[in-house]
């Protein structure tokens, strides 16, 4: 898994490239936690994630909770249909805002 970050329009864009599972999830957590500041706006691009294990979903929820604690917001973009189905069936989906494009993400994060 590779992680990159850039800041666009005051929004922290984090791009994940590769699977998120028990082995890589801690790395993702550490990377994103470093970006959490009060009122942060985080745009998590998972369009290059083919597989997300139960540990991966859990890390997403942990990050969501941490971002909420800092009064920040997070959106996910590019969630594959397989991952979407797993998130839906297991209830993780209800916590997240999913968008298709960066522009939609900006709208969701600033609304």
């Amino acid at each position: 898994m590779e992680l990159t970050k850039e800041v666009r329009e005051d929004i922290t864009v984090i791009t994940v490239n590769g699977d998120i599972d028990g082995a890589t999830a801690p790395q993702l957590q550490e990377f994103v936690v470093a970006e959490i500041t009060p009122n942060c706006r985080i745009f998590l691009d998972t369009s290059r994630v083919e597989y997300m294990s139960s540990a991966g979903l859990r890390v997403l929820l942990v990050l969501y909770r941490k971002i909420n604690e800092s009064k920040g917001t997070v959106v996910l973009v590019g969630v594959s249909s397989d991952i979407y189905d797993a998130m839906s069936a297991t209830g993780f989906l209800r916590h997240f805002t999913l968008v298709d494009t960066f522009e939609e993400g900006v709208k969701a994060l600033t609304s």
Partner: protein
Amino acid sequence: MISRIDTHPTHEYKGYKLRAGKLQPFGATLVPDGVNFSVFSMHATSCTLLLFNKGANEPLIEIPFLDQFRIGNVYAMTVFDLPYENIDYGFRFDGPWEPENGHRFDNTKILSDPYAKVISGRDVWGRTPDWDKPYPYRSRLVIDDFDWEDDRPVEIPIEDLVIYEMHVRGFTKHESSGVHVRGTFDGLREKIPYLVSLGVNCVELMPVYEFDEFEHSKRSPDSDELLMNYWGYSTVGFFAPKAGYAATGKFGMQVDELKNLIKELHANKIEVMLDVVFNHTAEGNERGPYISFRGIDNKTYYILTPEGYYYNFSGTGNTLNCNNPIVRGLVLDCLRYWASEYHVDGFRFDLASILGRDQFGAPLSNPPLLEQLAYDPILAKCKLIAEAWDAGGLYQVGSFPAYGRWAEWNGKYRDSIRRFIKGDKDLVGDMAQRIMGSPDLYATRGPTASINFACCHDGFTLMDLVSYNEKHNWNNGENNNDGANDNHSWNCGWEGETDNPDINALRFRQIRNVASILMTSQGIPMILMGDEVGHTQLGNNNMYCHDTETNWFDWRLTEKNADLLRFFQHIIAFRRAHPVLRNRYHLSQSDYIGSGYPDISWHGTQAWNPDWSANSTALAFMLCGKHARGGQAQDDYIYVAMNTYHDALWFNIPQLPAGMQWHMSVNTSMPSPQDIWALGDEPVLGEQQNILLGNHSVVILVGR
């Protein structure tokens, strides 16, 4: 924060870092930087832990529990730095092979953890297994950290329940279900709006503990069908949900998926009851496989004959030794786990009388397990329901040790209502008892001890009850010898499906009659999935082995038999709207309020003069609305008249208090939509003194 000392290893074995484990809790528990394993055996001489890469045949490592890692009869060890998502684990026990003394240790077998919370090996329903796998049912690790938010068990008063008995796979497996992933927990979740529209407020799920649908599987002798264990009354793991019922089972996420289903059912005010099978396991008799208990401590876990063979009170090969103190602990741990981690609202215990037998199989007058469950603090608000008989001849309907908590599947209600509606002789007195919540059986326990039903998964569907005189189980491959013979069914004039409109009309009327009586009886009604839309199993009364469309809920029936579905929706709504139908304590048949009417009064074709004779085919009763819930609630008056005669009968209706009028709620001999009226829309009855009931029909009036 200072790190704990016990987060650091003290030992090493072939590169794996270890330390002496925590003995409690049993099973595998994720701890900081490691996994704690704890397992019991009284008679073993040694134990090793095997760790596998997910699905692999050869273990990564086999680690012996050091001597100092055992305290009492418990082996415990923490292993550090395990990639928990990709690990399967198991145990190997050494000990005596002395079947005559009850010991069957075999150190060639790899055994699953009795406390495994996820079991892998049958991850996708029906996918042909590799039969040569040395370790087929594989313990796995799980994090119990589901985000329940504000959810907790619903705690609906038991007298207010309307139970819907259902099969998770069968509910949405049919192509017509239209759900995303058919036959799964998630599919069921998608269909919650249907359950809400039906009006039930409790789903009782047939077994969802991990089982092997391929157990005893075989090709049908007269078709190519693969006969399977479709029902699942054969547990492989008591703590693990059935992976094959989860859309996400292939990812090992069945725990979260089932919890998510329960959370959403709760959000819709629907309780979840699990049908649990503690009377036996999937290990069968002495010819059965080693899965777990047999190789861990056979003598502790099973009831054995003096020669060391398995007693078979369950009819399936073995009998779990439920009143051994160790096994009691396992059962209690298991139920507490499901109540606390899954927020389950109640349990229905399959062949529960076995839970009241001692270690030698004799029935106990004060079974410690049943008492313990009744008084347990975590289970305190759970519904506990017994199937109060077993296959060893113990029949305890009415006498199951209850401790003020236990309810029973009332088999007598089932038999009485079946015989009554077909017009059997000498049934009106008996039916009156059933309608009152069976005070003859549950004098001190109240009507809430009685789960009333006409049909359940075991036996005919309601449609088949009125379409077949005999069972038709030929495609089960047992020469039609399996399944019950005393069905008390009546085919209404033709065996099986027919185009005869008169017969079909009578059948649908009989179904409505059953629903009407069931929903106006004191006690807790239970209906079988599909009965509300006229599901047929083509006369098969023992469908345990068929994973076919005949067994699945056909959603097209919700349109084809929309009239019947409408009737069920309305009759359930009627019950839920009228507290006078849902008393917690027995009716007294007297007027203790001063309303001028007894709480329940009995009538026949003449008001106030029921005919209790053997040839009577007419029975009616009136509930006084002022006596609802012991006088604590105000309700309408309700009059129910039942004609089981083959011709129409006039019924003389009891008079209401001045100023009130009878309104028509149900008349099963009328065509839809006049068979039942929506709440509040009931028309005033033109003729208030008498009403004509068509042959085999039921009328319900409300007085207000």
